[in-house]
């Protein structure tokens, strides 16, 4: 049962999706914006709609810079469906969506997927204990509900780790410690890219100020190893080795983990788009051209979902993708010069400070893989490192064989939490590259859908 038809459907209301939808609608294309949250903003501007009134200072300027985008969106005259979950894009680019307890199909001539990024899995011993969350999760709680934990330990690496710890401190939440998995050696290696990085002084200045706040207000330890979170019904402590080898334990009920973000590829993979293993950033990303067009000419990817580049680049890439579609639909009257400028600016933004940051925050193998045999790897199915090791063997040529043998990857999250871990365990076992090893075959529904919702699509009984 098809409902409406649109010239452009945008999936995801973060900066990329918002700018894409605004751009397309402004050019007169019939536009639908679909997002699963109750308010726009995606991850980076989560809660901004309700926060702009209360404006807590601890969230910082870059967050509130998003208000400009929200205000532009208030002029959007396309259709906006909030609390709507996309669970499939069919081969003839119909979009299957669940909203209000019903499933429906939407016909779109062009689709812009702007579903952003997710946290890179960090399988620390004890990471499934209640009280352990991702740093992104802790930040979302702060933004959306003004809720935080006292005496939490932040562990890992990456700009989001330092930003959130700084926001916590500024919000008056005492932070017990920040344990940095990147050591002094990595800082020096990254400094070789410092010249390029200095072309983006604000990004680096921000990072240095967060670090200064952290060092002033809490214990900061660099180069930690051998992490272990202990507890029974909930986390009670985290232990670590320092760079010089001495072991310490910190009592805490809250551990926040982070080691960077990776493109959220479940929808793009389930849609059958081409992907490539990005060796530098150690993640999968969809194959796209400079406008964001994927291997399916009707589908574009904008934002971090096409490759991690941050909020500003995301917004620009949304405009670039929408522009490309506008030029296809209405070739006369578009401005190729502006479009080329947009693409060039995007390339520069992606290029400048990223190599420095990518080098600096490239997660070490020790933190990408589980160390103890009891560590759960597949959270959904409670599959441990021991279970996976027992299943590995000559017949496990890749993650799909492994999935069949021990259920890793069969749960609701469809590999978002375990996919990269499993892929690397197999690559190591078979002594092959990550690219050769491949990934789980991701299939719809990309998010769970109930039988009643599915049946409400009124398909014919197959027989």
């Amino acid at each position, binding site marked *: 049962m098809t409902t409406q038809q649109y010239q452009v459907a945008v999936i995801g209301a973060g900066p990329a999706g918002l700018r894409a939808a605004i751009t397309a609608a402004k050019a007169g294309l019939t536009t639908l914006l679909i997002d699963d949250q109750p308010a726009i903003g995606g991850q980076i501007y989560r809660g901004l709609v309700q926060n702009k009134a209360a404006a807590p200072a601890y969230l910082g300027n870059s967050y509130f810079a998003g208000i400009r985008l929200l205000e532009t969106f208030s002029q959007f005259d396309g259709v906006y469906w909030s609390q709507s979950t996309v669970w*499939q894009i*069919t*081969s003839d680019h*119909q979009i*299957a969506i669940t909203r209000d307890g019903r*499933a429906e*199909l939407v016909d779109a001539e062009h689709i812009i997927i702007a579903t952003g990024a997710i946290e890179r899995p960090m399988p620390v011993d004890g990471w499934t204990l209640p009280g352990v969350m991702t740093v992104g999760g802790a930040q979302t709680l702060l933004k959306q509900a003004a809720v935080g934990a006292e005496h939490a330990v932040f562990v890992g690496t990456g700009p989001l780790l330092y930003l959130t710890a700084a926001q916590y401190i500024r919000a008056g939440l005492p932070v017990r410690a920040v344990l940095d998995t990147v050591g002094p050696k990595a800082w020096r290696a990254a400094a070789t890219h410092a010249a390029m990085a200095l072309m983006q002084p604000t990004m680096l200045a921000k990072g240095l100020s967060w670090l200064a706040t952290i060092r002033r207000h809490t214990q900061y330890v660099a180069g930690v190893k051998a992490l272990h979170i202990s507890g029974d019904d909930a986390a009670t402590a985290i232990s670590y080795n320092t760079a010089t080898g001495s072991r310490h334990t910190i009592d805490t009920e809250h551990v926040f983990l982070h080691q960077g973000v990776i493109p959220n590829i479940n929808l793009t993979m389930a849609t*059958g788009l081409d992907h490539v293993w990005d060796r530098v950033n150690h993640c999968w990303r969809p194959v796209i051209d400079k406008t964001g067009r994927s291997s399916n000419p009707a589908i574009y990817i904008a934002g971090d979902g096409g490759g991690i580049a941050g909020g500003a680049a995301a917004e620009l890439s949304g405009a670039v993708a929408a522009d490309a579609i506008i030029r296809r639909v209405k070739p006369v009257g578009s401005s190729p010069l502006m479009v080329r400028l947009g693409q060039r600016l995007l390339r520069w933004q992606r290029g400048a400070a990223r190599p420095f940051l990518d080098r600096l925050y490239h997660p070490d193998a020790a933190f990408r893989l589980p160390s103890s045999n009891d560590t759960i790897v597949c959270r959904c199915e409670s599959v441990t490192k021991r279970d996976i090791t027992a*299943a590995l*063997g*000559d*017949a*496990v*040529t*890749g*993650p*799909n*064989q492994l999935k*069949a*043998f*021990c*259920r890793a990857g*069969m*749960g*609701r999250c*469809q590999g978002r939490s375990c996919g990269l871990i499993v892929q690397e365990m197999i690559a190591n076992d*078979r002594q092959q590259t990550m690219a050769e*090893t*491949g990934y789980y*075959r991701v*299939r*719809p*529904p990309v998010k*769970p*859908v*109930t*039988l*009643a919702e*599915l*049946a*409400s*699509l*009124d*398909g*014919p*009984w*197959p*027989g």
Partner: protein
Amino acid sequence: MTEPIRNNWDAIIAGGGLIGLAVGYGLGRRGLSVLVLDEGDTALRAARGNFGLVWVQGKGAYYEPYADWTMRSSQLWPQLADELQAFGAPALGLEQTGGLTICLSEDEMQQRQVKLDHLRAHQNGRFRFEMLDRTALKELVPGIGPKVVGAAYCPHDGHVNPLFLMRALITGIESQGGQFCGNAPMIGVEKTGPDMRVSTAAGLFSCSRLVLAAGLANAKLAPMVGLAQSLRPQKGQVIVTEKLDQQLTLPTLLLRQTAEGGLMIGDSHEDDTTDISVSTDIISGIADRALATLPALADVSVVRSWAALRVMSQDGYPIYDQSEAMPGAFALSCHSGVTLAAAHAFDLAGYIADACLGVELNGFSEGRFHV
């Protein structure tokens, strides 16, 4: 890729699916050294697209050899399960306490009855079944929906975890000293004296028994040993739900609850396609029928889906052939790799070890299509 440990094997199996693995395990039981050649992780693999039924009712209703062969395998299954469990593989979860074919109309009931009556007639009392009306069915499945008219119950039916079966067979083969070589499909074969030499990306290997069990790829491999297998793909789609408390004590043809608690729900029969993507209208229809069967499942979430290509012969029955041009070479295919696993492991492997298919399998030659 793994380097095979040696070049000479008693038996080489082309195809690491359920047929190849069951026969490979059986040959290992007979003392033969076995090498299994398989494709890579994302190959078509009908074996990973199996519903898991060990199903007797209806099979061979209009073709006696198939009814006999199916019943035989069903009776041997407990022995296969016991042997494989002894190697320490995860629990296969074999249950053979009966199965149901749910009917949503009087027409369906009648058609089913006619078919099963026919099957019973030529099985000399060996095959038992019962048509259950709503009242009788409600005792077995209390949550049955108002649209359900009844069901055909067969005490011989059952189910098993098909993926753990695959893993267990591989464990069995490896415990017997056999080897599994992935990313090394068979490329060609030539006769070398009484033996055969098989070429693959991993090198050349010789054997005195060559078993072609490569699913749809058998159509391409069989002519290499002077045989033919006319096979066509038939797509089936399945949805899988989150884990639940026990909803069903018996498997049904289109809906079964796994040992872990998830419901597997099928299916479809789509010809003329090799596209294994999942289609919204088909899975919507599957969900529809599931809710007609068990309405209480309305708020249960579907967490994944998959599609696979059944390996279908012209009449849907197995094809087992031995080569005359290359004695010792066999080509095998069927679409019921789980139900027939026991017959494959014990009887069929035995014939292959003896280099001669038994007369009971005459009805499964490709030649039956050229009469």
